[in-house]
């Protein structure tokens, strides 16, 4: 067994989990799915520089062989951008939930207040102060 196999199979498993979650009906699951897919994509991009052990791209007079620094630079910004995207999507989901009372993404406009503990109207459910 090789590291290449471990990385490739891990990427595959992350993608599979990501696709499955992205196809669920609620925003939070979709966000989790996106996170998994992002991990897979970042790993894949990184792996395009191939797997190299113990040769970080820190230049030194005495060292002659390094791993490819370019995929690393790309992935570094990708990780940060992933965070920006996740944050934006999470907050979009939150705002849409607050606006409609539903966190569905399946096109059904069924309010899920009864299950979620957030009443459509505070006075109706929460009792008098």
């Amino acid at each position, binding site marked *: 067994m090789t590291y290449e196999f471990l990385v490739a199979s891990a990427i595959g498993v992350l*993608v599979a989990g990501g696709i*499955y979650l992205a196809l669920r009906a609620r925003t939070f699951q979709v966000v989790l799915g996106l996170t998994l897919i992002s991990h897979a994509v970042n790993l894949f991009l990184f792996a395009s520089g191939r797997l190299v052990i113990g040769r970080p791209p820190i230049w030194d007079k005495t060292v002659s062989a390094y*791993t490819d*620094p370019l995929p690393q*630079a790309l992935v570094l910004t990708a990780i*940060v951008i992933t*965070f920006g995207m996740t944050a934006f999507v999470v907050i979009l989901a939150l705002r849409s939930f*607050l606006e409609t009372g539903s966190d569905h993404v399946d096109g059904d406009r069924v309010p899920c207040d009864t299950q979620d503990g957030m009443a459509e109207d505070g006075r109706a459910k929460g009792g008098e102060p």
Partner: protein
Amino acid sequence: MPMGLTLLTLTALPFIAALAIALRYGAPRAVHSGIAAAASAAGLALLASLAVPVLGGAAASASWAWVPSLGLDLSLMVDPLGWMFAALILGIGLLVVIFAHFYLARDEDTGRFFASLMLFQGAMLGIVIAGNVLLLLVFWELTSLASFLLIGFWQHKPEARQGARMALAVTGGGGIALIGGMLLLGLAAGSFDLAAILARGDIVRASPLYPAILGLILVGCFTKSAQFPFHFWLPHAMAAPTPVSAYLHSATMVKAGVFLLARLWPVLAGTPEYTVIVTSVGLVTMVLGAGVALFRHDLKSILAYSTISQLGMLVMLLGFSLKAAVLAAVLSILNHAAFKAALFMSAGIIEHETGTRDIRRLGGLAKAMPITALIATLAAASMAGLPPLGGFISKELMFGQTPAIALLGLPWLLPALATLGAGLSVGYALRFAAHLFAGQPREAEPFLRAHDPGAGMWAAPALLTMLTVLLGLIPMPLAAPLVGAVTAAVTGGPVPPFDLALWHGVNLALILSLVAVVGGALLLWQHKRLLGLWERAPLPDAKRLFEAAMRFADKWVRKAIVAAHTPSLQTMLMVSFAVTIALVIDGAWVGGGVLTGTRPGLPVSLTGIIAWALLIAATGAVVSHSHKRLRALIFIGVIGLIVCLAFVQFSAPDLALTQISVEVVTVLLLLLALNLLPKAPPTLSRPARRWRDGALAVTGGVCVGGIAWAMLTRDPGPSIAAYHLANAKSGGGGTNVVNVILVDFRAFDTLGEIIVLGIAGLGIFALLETAATGAAGARLRAWREDMPHSPERHPMMLVAASRIILPLSLSVGIYLFLRGHNQPGGGFIAALVVAIAVLVQYLAAGFDWSDARKPVGEHKLIAWGVLLAVATGLGAMLLGSPFLTSWFDYFHLPLIGTFELASAMLFDAGVFLTVLGAVMMALQELSHIARRAARAAGEHGA
């Protein structure tokens, strides 16, 4: 003044004026009209300074490279044709500004009016002095947009909105055709420079692209100049304020098409197809417009159809492909601009002073408003082509050319139809004057109100009418030099000798003119009977047809959208994933080959296998626990950590540092969001659907995993890594190659990325700051604590520990930042570490305590970060290097030793600030809104 500066000022003046007016929005109207008038007058003065050399034959031009790779130059050229049009645009523009100052009602939004008018003037001016066809296209589109604003100026009126939309749809649609035509023209001529294209007419006409070029450019010109069958937008544009109509439909907007036909005349004209198409379209438009004008009752509508007809005549003359006909067209452009602007202004005066524009309610106005009557009658007589006015001479010239073209092989057809059109023109022009000013008032009310306006309003049309009279009386000294020079510029060669005069003896032109006048008089005499016939005739209503076409398009577009766009994200993602996976499988199937390459693998260690197993298990747990959301989040954290370990293992220390800090903030973010979201909702989808999605997911996973495997077991192709490694220290001054790539080699990418991150932060701010009102606000206030939490809100131990840790973690952040250029670290990582350090304060001590103590707001961090990064790049440009070139040097200080200063460090500081701002913005806003909800819930519970 140097030539380049003169031309640039000339072009920029109207735009500067528009901006100045818009900036002084609330100022009194005299300020607005004053700025507009001053800009127009200054433009005229500049133009006058160019008159002698330009009309002498030396075109004034200047050019600056803009996007040389596209052939787009900022190239300006004033030749006699451009000069004449610029003079019309600025001169009539000045008169319109004066007229509008007195015309507009007291509470009118003059700031918007004059700003739009100046924007339009600038766009028109740009068209006529652009020396590059791509630049011309830009201005062309701008006229469509600016005229939309002007026609729809009275936004509260539905007909103004519809008219503006129709004008935009027709002229904008024509603009698209024109873009295509001009691009093909540039390809055929091998240049986008106007002078070069004009010199290569033979090449263009011989090109196989010529029919397409001709067709597309003609569509652009015909839509703009309201030629049949695109004429219908013009009458509906009359919903604009009258000064706008006077401007757009005498000297500018509709003349743009005529201008372009004239401009490209040496390139396009001369072929049989050009002659037939342009002549026939112009002829049909001329007759049709004149015929309809005879039976309209709204003064502006009469003038609108007469404009269509006159434009038809101009287009027809250009279509003859004869130099003498071009001469007639040039003189007609001058005449038409003068009398039509005067007539529109007169119509505006009459409406202003009587309250109506319906010719059936007016009459006998000569007694009530003699000055207006004199002005309008003279202008209408010029429009009718009666001697001794300018209109007569241009109509004579037109008639003189008609026998030269035999349409459908019939030499008499064109003269006959032209005479018919001219006769109809005489008819509506005579009706305009006679029914308005002569006879008895038809209704008492408008007549009793009627009186001449103040001199401010009639001065402009009076001046124009005087011009049209002088053009008839002394045409040679007044117009001949200009007309001759313009004709030479249009045709690109010497002009045959010509004589502009009222009397050339008895010839065919005079006889046709006479026939037209007599016919027109007969039409006026029989007008009532003809009107009856006209009103009984079934006629298509262009507006209704247009609206029906729009409704049809609207309906089908809606249907297409509904069919393609379901509100279900699941369905759309499902289709996207399935199609992508199918493409991958198809590619693998067709491509064949073996999956596993020959590259030797790295032997695996036990820790590697354990980490891998953990990752697989955590992924499975996330999927199976996705409805128990808190637990799923913990497993997400595990996955992130193992990915981070992978980066450590495979020689990517920078990535590992980034990954671990991003993981922390991501989990914090999701936790905060989860606080307000449903925690453990029941599963929604049915088992069948879950199985289907599962199958798709496994297939996708196998595909991507397979691709990764195939890639990892093969050697990479030639890489540019060696270049980066070799030049990082010597060229970029840093030994951490990843960081040097980020802040130096590919700094432009990084700049884009931090801007995206900043925008995401601001978007988050916008989404959450506005959540306090409306339905979202109500739900937030109704929010209930639904998780068990510690009775102590701010545990003493945590608060104390976090305050001790803060300076330590800030030091780590600064250290990571400073060493980033040479060792793992840098702006991205430092920002994340500092963000976590600050967030810990929020967690421990609470939002209020921490928020009150933050030194700088997140908006400012983002803004200063991006500005600093951009400024670093611009600094390099100031020193004469390309954008974002870095600079570094080594310095020596006692005690500290040798150290390096690099401009890349400033850029990295910009990255640091932006990332810190964006991360803090997301988390801080989220905890802010959660705190608001919690406070509301607390009040409920009390």
